[in-house]
């Protein structure tokens, strides 16, 4: 157990936004909340998952909804903590710690917000190692752990408990419906996990990883070095392409942002054509018509100059970008993992293609 230092918050925001692989929403507003809480004297501790007792109870939290709504109805720690208290009341048990469902994007900060309000420590782990759009796309779902109960809170006095659900997909459908009704933004506490479950099935040490990644990018930017190269070095990634966005097409289907972007190469990639398809997050990419990488490999599009991640919503014609791949957590690369989060889970009828060699 250690304190998360104030000067780690900004690197966490930068790193988490990269790990968001285009989705998950920008961490900026959640970061502002944490910065303010720290300025007021609050501090949050980070817990090594190895220190969890097997029967400890861990809250798995997320801010659910449309990133765009989050730009008007802003991240709020009091609201983030509400479903956690609901869950404790419902279960009649107290949590030992809190963790994020996804380290990618704004949800990297959700457990920190809860921790600041409750005093619980944040477990250095999540259930994706990146961002994904749906509840069944977690390491806990891949491990077939129970998906209920779930608590959901609105800023008004609306609170919903989903006591049972027939499957992870049903849980996703029901909670999504409620979320839409309260303005497409809601704070949730997912099915609680035991210490043993987190240790066995969580993606471990991702908060530390995100902070380290963000710190490297910021250091490189400050030293006028290439922040993209720094990202690759810090996260054992591979550069896939450098180019300019030539075309972006988006369509909303079944409540998701789907689409693809075409990029024309510059520098060493001059003359090459790159295409990336997304469903909230970047899912699959082609180079000159041939698939070169698919989810669960992390496909990240970065601003070539600043190294800042570019979300699927803000990808625009003319941007100069570097596309990189970062290795996915091992559990996502297992056959069961690929069933949940491989290319077919996003409607692409193809096998998993990794730039990081054979599957484990």
């Amino acid at each position, binding site marked *: 157990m250690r304190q998360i230092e104030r000067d780690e918050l900004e690197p966490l925001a930068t790193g988490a936004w990269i790990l968001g692989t285009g989705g998950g929403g920008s961490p900026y507003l959640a970061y*502002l909340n944490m910065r303010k809480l720290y300025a007021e004297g609050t501090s949050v501790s980070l817990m090594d998952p190895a220190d969890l007792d097997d029967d400890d109870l861990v809250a798995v939290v997320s801010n659910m909804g449309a990133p*765009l709504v989050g*730009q008007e109805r802003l991240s*709020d720690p009091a609201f983030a903590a509400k479903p956690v208290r609901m869950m404790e009341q419902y279960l009649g048990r107290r949590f030992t710690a809190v963790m994020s469902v996804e380290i990618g994007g704004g949800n990297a900060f959700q457990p920190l917000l809860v921790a600041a309000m409750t005093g619980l420590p944040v477990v250095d782990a999540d259930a994706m190692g990146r961002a994904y759009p749906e509840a069944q796309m977690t390491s806990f779902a891949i491990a077939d752990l129970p998906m209920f109960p779930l608590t959901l809170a609105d800023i008004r006095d609306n609170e919903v408990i989903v006591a049972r659900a027939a499957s992870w997909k049903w849980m996703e459908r029901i909670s999504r419906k409620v979320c839409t009704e309260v*303005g497409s933004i809601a704070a949730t506490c997912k099915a609680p996990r035991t210490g043993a479950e987190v240790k066995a099935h969580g993606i471990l040490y991702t908060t530390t990883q995100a902070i380290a990644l963000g710190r490297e990018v910021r250091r490189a930017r400050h030293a006028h070095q290439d922040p993209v190269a720094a990202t690759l070095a810090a996260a054992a990634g591979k550069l896939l392409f450098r180019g300019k966005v030539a075309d972006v097409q*988006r369509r909303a289907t079944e409540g998701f942002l789907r*689409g693809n972007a075409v990029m024309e190469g510059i520098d060493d990639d001059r003359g090459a054509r790159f295409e990336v398809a997304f469903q909230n997050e970047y899912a699959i990419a082609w180079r000159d018509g041939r698939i070169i990488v698919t989810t669960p490999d992390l496909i990240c599009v970065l601003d070539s100059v600043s190294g800042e991640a570019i979300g699927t919503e803000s990808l625009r014609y003319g941007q100069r970008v570097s596309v990189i791949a970062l290795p996915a957590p091992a559990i996502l690369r297992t056959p069961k993992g690929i069933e949940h989060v491989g290319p077919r889970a996003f409607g692409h009828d193809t096998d998993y293609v990794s730039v990081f060699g054979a599957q484990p």
Partner: protein
Amino acid sequence: MRRIGIDVGGTNTDAVLIDGTSVIAAIKTTTTADVLCGVRTALAQLLAQGDPGRVSAVVIGTTHFTNAVIERRGLQKVGALRIGLPASASLPPFIDWPDDLSSIVCGQIHMVQGGHEYDGRPIVPLDTAAIREAARRIADAGLTSVGVTSIFSPLTAECEQEAERILREEMPAASITLSHDLGRIGLLERENVTLLNACLQDLARTIVAAFTDALQGSSIDAPLYLTQNDGTIMRAETAARFPVWSFASGPTNSMRGAAFLSGLQDAVVVDVGGTTTDIGYLKAGFPREANAAVEVGGVRTLFRMPDLLSIGLGGGTEINGGSIGPHSVGFRLLEKALVFGGDTLTATDIAVAAGRIDLGERGRVAGLSPALVASTLARTSEMIAEAVDRMKTEAGDVKLLAVGGGSFLIPDHLAGCSEVIRVPHHAVANAVGAAIAQVSGEVDQIFSNVTRDQAVTAAQREAENRAVDAGAIRKNLKLVELEDIPLSYLPGDARRIRVRMVGDIGGH
């Protein structure tokens, strides 16, 4: 159609008279502390060059309001009213402002219940009693400017309008800025711009009145406009209410001026100054915009700025053996460069030695080795060509517009460019850009439960109306921007549509 363009910059005030597509007269004067005087002098000097004939518009581009924020001077304290509780409570107005600026601008903060959802439903009923209480406290404190921001007001402005009505009852003389007049989705950024606008109200009234007085004191009888950051104009009375629209209009005017002087709509503009070279792209006569959030005086805003790439190469760039820059003698070129009797070898000296330009005393660089001159020019050409290529978004050669005092560094033939075009009057491109600015109307809104076509049509019609309200002629309005983003997770086939229509000034 004759127009006068005036660029009131930090150092120089330039003025041009244009007729159709030609520059009739152009002058450069020094900016004075007294704005009225500077503009009056510039106008007088311009008119001294001959009878301007019938002038249909005078357009001023100014960095005055941007500089006021950056330098923290001439700003007034404001009352901030946020409508949207219980949402967004933890991040109050001024949350991410630099302390020195918020301590100057922040008079009072009030947050009350109200606001809307993305689909137009109220979050909770608007707390009008709380607004009245806030208005009284703001008035009691002697504050005279208020910025009002309500959640999702770009979709429905009801709450802000109701707040304005109540504020007016309690403080009839106050300046009131409503966020939906200024902005897009993004509560904090829109609120920041609203508060910046509120703190510039007294200054804007003073400055715009000075511009108006200077014009009235001249023999010109024409309406006065100010330029905005997107290369279009607003009426002087609009500028007095919304000074923030003038932020960052400088680079835009410069690029638009270059486009006009050359007659090109699509080209890469390479502006070589003393220290840096700025490369930007013109698309349909307007600069391509940058994507990143733009900060003004350390405050995040939603403004779009031209997408510029700057490299360390200019007329004053120092040459040391094989290396070029990044140091530059900058504005001291006239004392430092060899051709002017100085002791520093600069890019200008190389260009003089090569016969690219005739400046200073050529004899002073006669001893330079031809190999050094050739290799340096080859390298500077390469630097420019590389930068131009980095900014390209399409394969194929582009036309290059060479502007700026150091533009002799750009060779007549450059890799990746079909043509290098040099324009006369490029030193007053900013004032030309102001003179030729057009009028725009913009809409950025979320539509749901209608087809894409219906949504686009509705947005376009509203943008047209806004352009006409701003002074455009309806019949030649052109669509210059259409962005359509379906929204993830939102039902009803929701999409966010941004449309911009542009047209010529219609006069009074």
